[in-house]
C-alpha cells in the first residue's frame, strides 16, 4: 500500500462547452446531476424541440409536456399524491423482484475504475434496483452485494463456477448497442495490476473478447449455453443483444430457448471503446424495435413472465415511461448512471484519461480517487429522484403501477414522423403540433462546408496518421452518441441507413483474426482490386495526381485519371482508367481500361476494336436512370456514376442512383445473360466520405466506390504545396504517398469491421447488392423503396 496522501474527490467537475451536437448535452447532464445531488424529482418532461430521436417525437396523448411540467411545479411538494403508486416489478418469471423498472447496465470492472463499480452495486442494494456487473470478473466489494447480475461473455474473463453462482442471475452477453457484432475491448493501457488479477490476464495487454461466442453460432447453440449455465448454477439466465435487424425474432428465439429475459441494447448506448465506424453505422435504436419485440413475443405466447429489458440512450424517467409503454418491462441505463457520478462526455474512456475519475486507468497507488461514500450517495439519490419522477409520470397517466404501463402503445402518439414509422411503433400518428416534441429530420442538399464536418475531417486524418495516432487503423471512440439521424442532422441518404450486426443467429467475424475477403474482381476477373475502393477523378492537378497514380498501383486499386501520366510505365498503367480521348493511339501504354462520357457513346463501336475495357461515365441524376437501358447493348465493361460530373440542381443522392442503376442492370438481359453479370458498376465522387459510405454503396449495388475529396482530406491536401510549379523542397511526396496508403489500409479495416459485424466474410460475393443487411430509420418511404431497403424495426 502506498503511503502518499490520496485526494478524495467529492464534487462534480464543471461542464466544458461541447464541440459538437451530443445526445448527452448539458440539459440531460444537468438534470441527472440535480437528481444525484437532491434525490428528488426535478421535472417530468424534457424539451425535445431540437431533438430528432424517434423516441423524442413521441408523447403521451393526454398530456401536454409543457403544461404538465408547470402543473408538477405546483404540486411537487405533496408526496401523498404519489405514495400509493407502485413502481415494483418482477423479472425472470417472478424470480427477481426490484423496486423500480431500472437496471443499471453492464459496465465492467476495468472499463470503470473500481469505485463506480462498487457505487452502482451498493446503490442498487440501497435502492432495490439491480446492477449488471459487466464482463471481466467481480471486484470483491461488488461480489458482496446482493442486487447484481454477473456476465458470461465471449472472452470468459474473470468468470468461474463460483462467480457464476454469485448474484441474482447470469447475463450471457452476445452483443452491445454501441458495437453490435464487435467483441468487448479493454485497451492494454487500462489493464493494470488490479484488473489483471480480476480478469486473470497479463498486465498491459489489450483484453479483446472475440466478436462472437465461439460456442454460440445459432439459436440452438444459445439454448445449449443457457441450459449449461442453469445446470451449473440453477440461476435465471438473461441474454443481452445489440439491437439489430432481427431483434424481434431473436427475442422470440431467446424466450423459446428457455432464457428468463432479454436485454436489448439499442444504438446510442455508451461504450468504453468502440470503432466509430461501428458505433455510428451499425444497429437500430431501441425505440424503433421494442414494440415489435413485445408484439412478436405476445403473438407467440412467449411474453408472460419473460423479461424484456430495453437499453440504449435511456436518459430519464420520461424515456423510461415511453419505452415501457412501447412494450418493455424494464429499462437499462449505463451512461445515465455515469453522468450521475460526474461524467462530462469527453469521450476518452478508451485512453484511460477521465477527468471525472470514472473510467481512468486503475493503478495500485493513485493520487486522486473518487470518494466511494459520495459515489454511493450520488447514485442512490439519482435513482431515488428518477423513481420519484417516474411515479409522478404514472400519476399523470392515471396509472397506479409500473406494470400497468407495459405495452400501452395506445397511450402514445407519434409526431413529425412518417406513417410507416408510427405503424412500426404501433402508435397512432397525430398531425397536430405539441410543444417540446422534436422535429423530423429531412433530406436536403447541404453545402460542402456543412457536409465535411470537423469531426469527419478529423477522423479521416486519423486514418492516414496525419492526426498522429495509429496510421492505418480504424478510428476508436468511446461514450455517448453523435450519430445521424438520431442526434446529428443527416447529410446524405446513407446517414439514414443502418447496417446489421450479427447477433445469435449467426456469428459476427473478428476481422483482426479471421479472414474477410475484400478483393474485388472487375471485367470478368481481368482486373483485380484489393478492395472495393478506387481513387476517383480529381479536379486538382500537379503532384497529387502522381501520388494517386502510385497509390493505385501499390495498393492494387484503380485511379480514374484525367490523363495518361507516364506512357512508358506499362505495368503501373494497368491501374489507370483514362478518358478515351487520352487513349487514342496509345494502345501500347499498358492501359487496360478507358472511360467515355455518356453523350459520346457513338464512339464505342470504333473504340471497341481495341483490346480495351470501356466504362461509360454518367452523372448522378434521374436522366441517367432513364438512359442506362440504352447503353446496355453496347460493348461496355462498366458504368461509372460520378457525383461531380455535370453537378447541378438535378443531381441526386449517389445512394439512390446506385441502387436504381443496379436494379436496371439486374432486370435487363443481354442475350440470355443478366446485364449485371456483364457490366460492372462503379460509383464515385466528392460526396463519398468514408468506409461506411463505401460499404453501404456496395450493398446497394456498386462493385467499387471511388474516393477523391475524402482521400485529399485524409492527407491534409494543400493545393499550394502540391502544384508542380511550386517550390517542392519542403514537400515530401513519399511521405504523402505513405499517408494515402495508410488511409486505404484503414478504410479496408473499417470495411472489414462492418462486414464482420454483419457476419459477412466476402465483400464481392456476399455484400454486393445485399440490401437485406440494411435497415432505414424513419426515412421517407418513397426514397426507402427506391433503395429497396426495409424499414428498421418492422418484422
Amino acid at each position, binding site marked *: 500500500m*502506498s503511503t502518499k496522501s490520496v485526494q478524495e474527490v467529492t464534487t462534480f467537475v464543471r461542464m466544458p462547452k461541447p464541440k459538437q451536437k451530443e445526445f448527452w448535452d448539458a440539459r440531460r447532464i444537468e438534470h441527472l446531476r440535480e437528481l444525484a445531488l437532491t434525490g428528488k424529482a426535478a421535472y417530468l418532461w424534457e424539451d425535445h424541440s431540437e431533438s430528432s430521436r424517434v423516441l423524442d417525437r413521441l408523447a403521451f396523448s393526454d398530456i401536454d409536456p409543457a403544461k404538465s411540467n408547470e402543473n408538477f411545479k405546483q404540486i411537487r411538494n405533496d408526496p401523498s399524491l404519489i405514495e400509493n403508486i407502485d413502481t415494483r416489478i418482477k423479472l425472470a418469471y417472478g424470480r427477481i423482484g426490484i423496486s423500480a423498472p431500472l437496471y443499471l447496465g453492464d459496465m465492467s470492472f476495468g472499463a470503470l475504475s*473500481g469505485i463506480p463499480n*462498487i457505487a452502482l452495486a451498493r446503490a442498487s442494494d440501497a435502492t432495490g434496483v439491480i446492477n449488471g456487473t459487466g464482463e471481466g470478473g467481480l*471486484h470483491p*466489494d461488488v461480489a458482496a452485494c446482493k442486487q447484481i447480475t454477473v456476465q458470461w461473455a465471449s472472452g470468459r474473463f474473470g468468470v*468461474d*463456477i463460483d462467480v457464476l453462482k454469485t448474484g441474482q442471475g447470469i447475463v450471457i452477453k452476445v452483443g452491445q448497442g454501441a458495437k453490435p457484432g464487435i467483441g468487448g475491448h479493454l485497451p492494454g493501457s487500462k489493464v493494470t495490476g*488490479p484488473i489483471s488479477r480480476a480478469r*486473470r*490476464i*497479463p498486465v498491459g495487454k*489489450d483484453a*479483446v473478447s472475440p466478436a462472437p461466442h465461439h*460456442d454460440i*453460432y*445459432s439459436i*440452438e*447453440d444459445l439454448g*445449449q449455453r443457457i*441450459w449449461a449455465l442453469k445446470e*451449473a*448454477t440453477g440461476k435465471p439466465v438473461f441474454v443481452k443483444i445489440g439491437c439489430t435487424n*432481427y431483434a424481434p*425474432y*431473436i427475442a*422470440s*428465439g431467446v424466450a*423459446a430457448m428457455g432464457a428468463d429475459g432479454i436485454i436489448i441494447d439499442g444504438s446510442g448506448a455508451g461504450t468504453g471503446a468502440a470503432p466509430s465506424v461501428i458505433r455510428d453505422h451499425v444497429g437500430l435504436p431501441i425505440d424503433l424495435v421494442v414494440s415489435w419485440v413485445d408484439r412478436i413475443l405476445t403473438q407467440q405466447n412467449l411474453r408472460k413472465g419473460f423479461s424484456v429489458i430495453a437499453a440504449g440512450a435511456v436518459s430519464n424517467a420520461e424515456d423510461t415511461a415511453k419505452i415501457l409503454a412501447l412494450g418493455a418491462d424494464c429499462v437499462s441505463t449505463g451512461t445515465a448512471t455515469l453522468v450521475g457520478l460526474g461524467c462530462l462526455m469527453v469521450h476518452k474512456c478508451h485512453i484511460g484519461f477521465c477527468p471525472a475519475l470514472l473510467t481512468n486507468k486503475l493503478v*495500485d497507488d*493513485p493520487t486522486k*480517487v473518487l470518494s*466511494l461514500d459520495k459515489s454511493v450517495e450520488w447514485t442512490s439519490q439519482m435513482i431515488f429522484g428518477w423513481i420519484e419522477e417516474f411515479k409522478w409520470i404514472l400519476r399523470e397517466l392515471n396509472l397506479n403501477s409500473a406494470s400497468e404501463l407495459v405495452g400501452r402503445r395506445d397511450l402514445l402518439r407519434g409526431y413529425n414522423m412518417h406513417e410507416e414509422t408510427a405503424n412500426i411503433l404501433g402508435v397512432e400518428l397525430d398531425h397536430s403540433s405539441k410543444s417540446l416534441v422534436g422535429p423530423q429530420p429531412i433530406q436536403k442538399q447541404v453545402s460542402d462546408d456543412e457536409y465535411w464536418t470537423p469531426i469527419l475531417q478529423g477522423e479521416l486524418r486519423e486514418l492516414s496518421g496525419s492526426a498522429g495516432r*495509429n496510421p492505418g487503423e480504424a478510428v476508436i471512440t468511446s461514450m455517448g452518441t453523435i450519430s445521424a439521424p438520431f442526434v446529428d442532422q443527416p447529410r446524405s441518404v446513407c446517414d439514414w441507413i443502418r447496417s446489421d450486426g*450479427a447477433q445469435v*443467429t*449467426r456469428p459476427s467475424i473478428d476481422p*483482426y*483474426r479471421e*479472414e474477410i*475477403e475484400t*478483393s474485388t474482381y472487375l471485367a470478368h*476477373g481481368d482486373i483485380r482490386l484489393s478492395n472495393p475502393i478506387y481513387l476517383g477523378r480529381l479536379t486538382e492537378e500537379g503532384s497529387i495526381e502522381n501520388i494517386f497514380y*502510385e497509390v493505385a*498501383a*501499390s495498393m492494387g486499386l484503380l485511379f480514374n485519371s484525367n490523363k495518361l501520366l507516364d506512357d512508358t510505365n506499362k505495368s*503501373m498503367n494497368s491501374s489507370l482508367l483514362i478518358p478515351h480521348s487520352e487513349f487514342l493511339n496509345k494502345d501500347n501504354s499498358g492501359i487496360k481500361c478507358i472511360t467515355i462520357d455518356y453523350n459520346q457513346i457513338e464512339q464505342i463501336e470504333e473504340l471497341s476494336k481495341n483490346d480495351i475495357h470501356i466504362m461509360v461515365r454518367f452523372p448522378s441524376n434521374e436522366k441517367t436512370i432513364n438512359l442506362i437501358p440504352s447503353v446496355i447493348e453496347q460493348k461496355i465493361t462498366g458504368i461509372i456514376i460520378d457525383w461531380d460530373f455535370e453537378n447541378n440542381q438535378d443531381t441526386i443522392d449517389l445512394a439512390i442512383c446506385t441502387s436504381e442503376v443496379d436494379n436496371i442492370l*439486374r432486370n435487363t438481359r443481354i442475350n440470355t445473360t*443478366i446485364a449485371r453479370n456483364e457490366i460492372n458498376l462503379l460509383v464515385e465522387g466528392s460526396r463519398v466520405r468514408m468506409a461506411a459510405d463505401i460499404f453501404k454503396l456496395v450493398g446497394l449495388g456498386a462493385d467499387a466506390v471511388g474516393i477523391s475529396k475524402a482521400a485529399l482530406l485524409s492527407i491534409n491536401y494543400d493545393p499550394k504545396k502540391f502544384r508542380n510549379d511550386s517550390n517542392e523542397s519542403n514537400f515530401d511526396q513519399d511521405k504523402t504517398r505513405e499517408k494515402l496508403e495508410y488511409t486505404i*489500409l484503414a478504410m479496408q479495416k473499417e470495411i472489414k469491421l462492418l462486414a464482420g459485424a454483419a457476419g*459477412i*466474410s466476402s465483400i464481392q*460475393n*456476399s455484400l*454486393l447488392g*445485399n440490401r*437485406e*443487411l440494411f435497415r432505414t430509420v424513419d426515412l421517407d418511404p418513397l426514397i426507402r*423503396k427506391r433503395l*429497396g431497403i*426495409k424499414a428498421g424495426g418492422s418484422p
Partner: protein
Amino acid sequence: MTDNKLVSKDDCGVFAVLKKKHSSKIPNQIAVDGIECVRFRGSKFGAGFASFNIENSNKDFLLSIFVENENTFDEIKTILSDHGFTIGNIKSQTIAASELSLDISLIISTDNSEKLSQVVNEINYKFSTPNYRARIYSSGNYVNVYKDIGYPSDVASSTGLITSDTVADLWIAHTRQPTNSPGSSAIWCHPFSNVNAAIVHNGDISSFGSNINFLNYRGVTNLVGTDSEVVAFIVDYLARIENLSMNDIGLILSNPYDRFLYRLGSDKTKYIRDLLYRYRGAELDGPFTIFIGYSDGNDVYLLAVIDRSKFRPVVIGEDDDCIYMASEECQIRMLSPKANIWTPQPGRFVLASMNQGIIESGRDSDTIDSISSDLIQIENSHDISQNIIDSNGLSSYELNTNIKSILSDGPKQVNLMNVRGQRYLGVNLPKDTELNIYGTPGNCLANFNKGTNINVYGSAEDNVADTMYEGKITIHGNTRDVIGYALQGGKIFIRGNVGNRAFILMREYEESRPVVIVGNRADDYFGEYMAGGLALVLGIDSLDSAEPEQLVGNFLATGMLRGLIYVRGKVNADSIGLKPPKEDIINYLSYLNYKGVIDTDLFEQLSSASDINLNFLKSKLSDDAFNSVKKLFSSKYSVNLDIEYRKLDSSDLELLIPYLNEFVSDFDISDDVLNKLLSSEYTIVRSIDKSKDSKTPKVTIVEE
C-alpha cells in the same frame, strides 16, 4: 424485391442417409430414428423428411401442396388444367399446421417439366399475396417431401410417413428451431424443395440478400422468404438450367477462401475463380451446414456444403451399406455403431452418390482413415461394478440428476453406460470426483469444471471443457469443435483428433497452467487467441507415414498472445496466423520494383516464393523496402509469432517428458511410439512478445 416478407432464421438438427449401389433401399424408420435422436436440437415448430427414389417414372411429377381449403385447391386444379396438364391420382390429408392445414399430393404426367415448373411458380405467386392461401412445396418426379409442425416423430405420423412403409435411395431429414417465423405454418418447415432438389439446412445465411437477387433476376421471384429456401432454388437452377455438375455446385455454394486457392495449382485456381465470378450471388456466406439431395434420373446425389469457418456441426459416416450425414455423431453411432466417421474440413463440401459412393470426402485424401474411429467399448476393462447408470433413454436432465444424486451419497466415482448425446455431463460436480463415460457424450461436457476427472471411452462432441479451471479429461476417441474454450487449468488428453477452434483463448495465470495433448490431428484455428498454457499435436497415427500430412489446419495460433504450441512435423507458414492476400503483397512488391527500390531479380524471387511472410521479407529486403511493405501486415492487434522447426532440445524434453509419459500410459501407447515422438521434428510456435507482462503480476491489495 422482398419487401414486407417475413424472413425466417432457422437453426436446427439435420440428418441424411444414402444407400450404396448394392444395398437395399432404406426404410422410413431409419430416417425418423436418425433425426429423432437429436430432437433436443429442434422444437415443436416443425420437422420434415424428403425421400428420393430414382426408378420413379421420368414423367410423373408429384406436386405436394399445402392449401387452406378445397375451394382453393379447385382453383389450383383449374389453373393446371388450363395449362393443359392432366391431373392424376390425388391424396389428401389434414396436417397439424393451423394455417394451410390441408396437405394434398397429386400426380401430373407430363413431358414438359420446364413448363410445369413455370406453372408451379405462377401458382405459388398467385396464392402468396396478401396472405398465403396455398403453397406447392414439392414438385419433382424423384423426390417426395413430408413436412409439418411438430417434432420429427409427430411429423412422421401426421404426414402418414410412418405408416406408409416407404423406402428410399436417399433420405434427408430435419428438426427445426426457428429463430423466428410463424410456428403455426408448415410452409416454413424443411426440407425445401424445387423440382428434383431438396435441402435441409442448419444455420443462417448472411448472403441471403445477394442470393435472393441471384434468383429474382433469373425469374425465380416467388419465395417464402427464408434463407434456407433460396438454397433449394439455387441448386435446382444451377443443376437443371445451367447443367452444372454437383461438384461445381458444391464449389460455388461452399465458396472457398480465395487466399488458399493457389495451393490447388494455377489451372484449378483459375477454373474456380471463373466459376465463382460467373455465379456471383449464388455463393453462400454465414454459418451453414446444408444437406442437399438431388437426382437427375441417372443417379442420386447427396451433397453436404459447409461454411468456410465450419460454424455448424457436421459429421459424415460410412459403413458397408450406407453413407450418413448428421449434426451429431450420436445420430450415426445409434444406427451404425461401427461406422467410419469423420468431419469435413471447413469450407469443403462432401459429395456422395448412390452409384459412386463417396466422391468427395471433404478432407484431404489420406487424412480420412486416420480421422475415423470405431466406437470404443471397454466396458469390462476395469472395475466398474459399482455406481453404474445405464443412460439409455435418459434425458440430459435425468442423467445429470442421477449423477449428482449418487455423488451426494458419498461415492467419488460414477460410471455412465450407453451415453448417446446427453449434454452438460460433468458440469458442477464436487471436487475430486471421477466420471467414466461409455458412448458418445453430448455437447458441453465438463464445462466450468473445477476438479472432476472425466474419462470418455468413445468420442465427445462440441464444446468440451469450456472455462475449465481444474481436473483432467481423457478422451479415447475424437472430439469435435471448440474444445477447451478459455481453458484456464488442468489437463485434457485426446487420443484421436480435435475439430475446429480447439483451445482458443486458453490462458494461464500464476500457478495455473493448462496442458493439452492431441494424439492425432487438429483442424483450423487451433490455439486462436491463445494466452498461455501448453498444447501438443502429435500425429501418432501418421508417425510412420512417408509423406505425412500437415497435422493442423489453417489459421494456427492466430492472435496468440502467450503460451507454447508444439505440432509434430512441418507446418506450412501460410497456415499460421492471418496474413494479407498474396496478390496484395506481390502487387506492392511489383510497385517497389517499378520504383526501382528492388530489382527485378529480387522481385521475381520474392513473388514466386511459396509463402511470403514478414520474416522472409525482412531477410531479403533493404530496411526501406521492408518498412514500406510491412504496413500491409500491420495491425495494432497482431502479435509476431516466433516459429521454429526443429528437434526437441533438452529444455523442451524437460518440459514435455512428464506429460508425454502420462499420456502414453493413459492410452496404453507403446514405448516405441513414445521414442519416435521424442525424436521427431516439431513446429514450435510462441509469441515473440517477452515483455515484462509475460510474468504474472505480484498480488497487491486493491487500493480504494
